[in-house]
């Protein structure tokens, strides 16, 4: 309660309960999602996809499809090779060209081979069935460990290897620390290929407007520099692309990056002179949507002393990126910025290896690689505790960075801004009534069940920045992911914030209104926030990397402060007093020593908009401000050893679940779930708690149910919602939360990010709980997801 009181005293709007600005349209069915946009004369795309993991395309017979009534066009990959440029890659791989559709060779089952355009989606699907493709199956590889063997078939022969990226980073005296440590242990952990799988698939509509030579785009998108990527691929200037940001996105959490979809549809719209839309159906989304997540094998060694002090860490991370690299290999780079987790570990060796295979391509997923890495680190800490017969919480207390050590620079060069891991942990233990929880577990065990308590600590790097881009690709010197906000006050005195991004549920309108309202002491409910289009707005890097509370909040705060400054100048001029004798008061400006003497908001608005004669000399008429904010601490290039400041702010969570396992069926039930959460200042507590709860639910999926499973023939076995299993309301327990606030010194209100932590911590916590349950039997599982069959197999093999 003390925290709550402090916050209430410090802020008048921030951190207070407030209904969001977005929800009203969603509860009335008035959200505007991409599939809701109906443009006259729209044409629909359906796709013909490869059934083979690798096949030469000898011929594509499209006559029957073209002859079908209602079909407008049928195009193949070869046509796009002629007409478009390759899609952007996150790595410098000149010999791997990614295009919207296969040309010459299809490299995974589900890859687009041919696109059919018709007057309805039904007819497009009818026609797609009539396309016949002559394939010549080729050797292929599915398993990433086989893929790196010399004899493996090459996914991209021109590249000469299936390894897309490999580098061994060494930060500190790893060999020495391992040699000096009392103990070391090694293990392998696997993170199964899952993803965010939003309930809305990806969709895009494009229309070429010949009168103004502009390609208009409406999409369910969350992609940095989207307009520029479209422009580059289509060979157009970026100021010919107008992306409408006022489209609601039905969930993304990273993956809504449909650049190949957009280039295809944009090309077709221009060619056909009609609006063209491609709304993925669920089957397209799961197989050829290129939206899978990390797929990792970790080989971890950890060195430690008798007393439990962690000394050094070696991590080799082999990631199966699938067929095309895109930005996905960079998901091995981002975790470098938190490679020791919340622990005081003095040296690290990290060897990321990105491998391509003949399966669907990866895309960015919530946490951008941090979730798997956190699972590996936390599993290591649990193993050390078990090895030393220490309490799992105690070993963490011993190794946590202490609150007075911040800013704390980890071996890989990133400084953590602030935190109080010990206090959050203690608060979480208190919330869970830990001794009672242990008693409950032991009671369940006495009843013959397998019961276990998990613990995981989790850092959420936030305020996303570009550090991994120059680190993994020296030809890409990006060191800023700026964010922007504009504010204008109209003649009526109403405030409007203008942002340059789409939202997928993060509540950006509420965020910006709350921050502006806080700075300018105006009611956020009266502030409108609009999402401009890409031509009308300032630069943005989109809501990736848990960054918008920080970056968009920071930009809004900066713009609001500029407005406030201008109001003070107007007031000083009209009251004929120096600004330091004035005080801003709820939109008015008053004389500090004589508060009754003041100039009101409405009058200052009128002065700015009409009475230029009352404005300070040589000032801009009107009341408006634009602010573009650089990521705090950004702008640095990596050093020769790969040390870099990755993200600026670090939220922290402690997760404590209690699980019970049916000893025969292997079915895991989560009985309780407690979390302590510290994301600094919460702008809107309901939004933060929703994201944390949702992140945990998502993490439950990754831990227990969700996997894009391929068989040895390279076929996806879990391509529908009947096989790829998202947690339902029955699988997500009630989550008990305790908040803590360690403000970030780097942000205007002390805020940090909160969109990812639940997902980053829950899989590790559940693995910890399951292993605690299995420990009395001497069993262990380090592969996610931990499906009931996997658990039962372990149990059965023992008996």
């Amino acid at each position, binding site marked *: 309660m003390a925290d709550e009181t402090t916050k209430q005293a410090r802020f008048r709007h921030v951190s207070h309960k407030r209904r969001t600005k977005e929800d009203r349209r969603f509860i*009335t*069915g008035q959200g505007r*999602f991409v*599939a809701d946009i109906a443009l006259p004369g729209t044409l629909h795309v359906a796709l013909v996809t490869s059934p083979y993991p690798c096949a030469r395309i000898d011929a594509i017979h499209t006559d029957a499809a073209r002859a079908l009534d209602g079909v407008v066009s049928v195009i193949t990959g070869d046509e796009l090779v002629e007409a478009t440029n390759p899609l952007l890659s996150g790595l410098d791989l000149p010999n791997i060209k990614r295009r919207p559709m296969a040309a010459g060779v299809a490299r995974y089952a589900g890859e687009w081979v041919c696109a059919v355009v018709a007057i309805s989606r039904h007819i497009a699907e009818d026609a797609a069935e009539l396309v016949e493709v002559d394939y010549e199956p080729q050797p292929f590889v599915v398993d990433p460990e086989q893929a790196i063997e010399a004899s493996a078939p090459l996914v991209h022969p021109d590249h000469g290897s299936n390894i897309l990226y490999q580098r061994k980073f060494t930060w500190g005296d790893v060999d020495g620390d391992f040699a000096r440590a009392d103990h070391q242990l090694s293990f392998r952990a696997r993170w199964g290929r899952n993803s965010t799988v939003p*309930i809305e698939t990806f969709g895009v509509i494009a229309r070429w407007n010949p009168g103004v030579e502009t390609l208009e785009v409406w999409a369910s998108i969350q992609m940095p520099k989207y307009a520029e990527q479209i422009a580059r691929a289509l060979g157009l200037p970026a100021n010919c692309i107008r992306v409408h940001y006022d489209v*609601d996105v039905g969930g993304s959490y990273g993956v809504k990056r449909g650049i190949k979809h957009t280039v295809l549809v944009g090309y077709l719209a221009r060619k056909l002179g009609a609006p063209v839309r491609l709304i993925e159906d*669920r089957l397209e989304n799961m197989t050829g949507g290129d939206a899978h997540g990390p797929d990792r094998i970790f080989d971890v060694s950890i060195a430690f002393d008798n007393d439990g002090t962690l000394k050094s860490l070696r991590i080799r991370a082999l990631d199966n990126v699938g067929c095309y690299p895109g930005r996905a290999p960079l998901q091995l780079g981002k975790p470098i910025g938190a490679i020791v987790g919340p622990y005081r570990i003095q040296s690290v060796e990290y060897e990321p290896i990105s491998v391509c295979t003949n399966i669907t391509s990866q895309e960015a997923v919530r946490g951008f690689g941090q979730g798997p890495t956190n699972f590996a680190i936390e599993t290591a800490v649990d193993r050390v505790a078990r090895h030393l017969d220490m309490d799992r919480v105690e070993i963490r207390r011993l190794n946590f960075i202490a609150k007075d050590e911040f800013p704390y620079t980890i071996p890989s060069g990133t400084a953590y801004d602030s935190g109080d891991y010990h206090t959050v942990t203690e608060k979480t233990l208190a919330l869970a009534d830990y001794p009672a929880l242990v008693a409950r577990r032991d009671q369940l065990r006495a009843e013959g069940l397998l019961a276990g308590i998990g613990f995981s600590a989790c850092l959420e790097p936030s305020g996303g920045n570009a550090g991994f881009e120059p680190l993994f690709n020296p030809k890409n010197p990006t060191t800023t992911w700026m964010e922007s906000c504009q504010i204008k006050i109209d003649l009526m005195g109403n405030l409007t914030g203008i942002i340059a991004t789409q939202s997928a549920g993060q509540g950006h309108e509420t965020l910006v209104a709350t921050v502006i309202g806080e700075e300018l002491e105006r009611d956020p409910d009266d502030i409108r926030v609009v999402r401009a289009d890409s031509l009308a707005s300032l630069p943005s890097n989109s809501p990736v990397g848990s960054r918008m509370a920080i970056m968009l909040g920071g930009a809004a705060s900066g713009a609001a402060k500029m407005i406030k400054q201008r109001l003070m100048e107007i007031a000083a001029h009209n009251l004929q007093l120096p600004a330091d004798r004035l005080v801003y008061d709820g939109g008015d400006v008053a004389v500090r020593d004589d508060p009754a003497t003041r100039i009101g908001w409405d009058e200052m608005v009128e002065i700015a908009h009409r009475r230029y004669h009352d404005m300070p000399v040589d000032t801009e008429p009107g009341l408006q401000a634009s602010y573009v904010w650089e990521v705090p601490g950004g702008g640095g290039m990596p050093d020769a050893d790969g040390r870099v400041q990755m993200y600026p702010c670090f939220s922290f969570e402690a997760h404590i679940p209690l699980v019970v396992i049916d000893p025969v069926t292997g079915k895991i039930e989560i009985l309780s779930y407690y979390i302590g959460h510290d994301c600094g200042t919460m702008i809107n507590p*309901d939004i933060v708690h929703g994201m944390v709860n949702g992140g945990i639910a998502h993490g439950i999926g990754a831990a227990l149910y969700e996997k894009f499973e391929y068989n040895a023939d390279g076929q996806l076995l879990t391509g529908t919602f009947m096989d790829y299993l998202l947690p339902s*309301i029955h699988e997500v327990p009630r*989550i008990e939360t305790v908040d803590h606030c360690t403000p970030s010194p780097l942000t205007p209100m002390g805020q940090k990010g909160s969109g990812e932590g639940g997902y980053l911590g829950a899989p590790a916590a559940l693995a910890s709980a399951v292993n605690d349950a299995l420990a009395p039997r001497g069993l262990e599982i380090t592969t996610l997801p931990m499906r009931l069959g996997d658990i039962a197999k372990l149990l059965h093999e023992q008996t």
Partner: protein
Amino acid sequence: MKQRAIRVTVNGKAHESEIAPRLTLVDYLRDVLGLTGTHAGCEHGVCGACTVILDGAPVRSCLMFAVQADGHAIATVEGLAKDDGTLSPLQDAFWEAHAMQCGFCTPGMLMAATALLKSNPDPSDDDIMDALGGNLCRCTGYQQIIEAVRLAALRTGEADG
């Protein structure tokens, strides 16, 4: 193929349409009637985003052909608020509890929960979970949704009591 004439009542308003038999009810509502509040998430009956109320019972509109709705009454999310814009207690509770993030599953949740509260004005948490067990939400982890349904039941009970 032959078009079929159908007559359906949606949110109290009668509609007559000529449609292809293969048009699903969700596509009919969205593409023919322009009622885009009902969402298609999986189109194979798992996610529940397309839930509408058919003759009083919540059903998946992706698992029906629109021709099968001939002569029936359908309620969609667009019909929950009063004509003057007053929100239903459930809608208001969803807003109050922030029982959503992206809003894509929300219409299906609202329709399933509306039907629940009609048949069971004072549901237990288990009743709520049972009624919403076929509606996937990827954003919220469901907790705030359960709280919203509970809140709506409480407020309605107080208003009636």
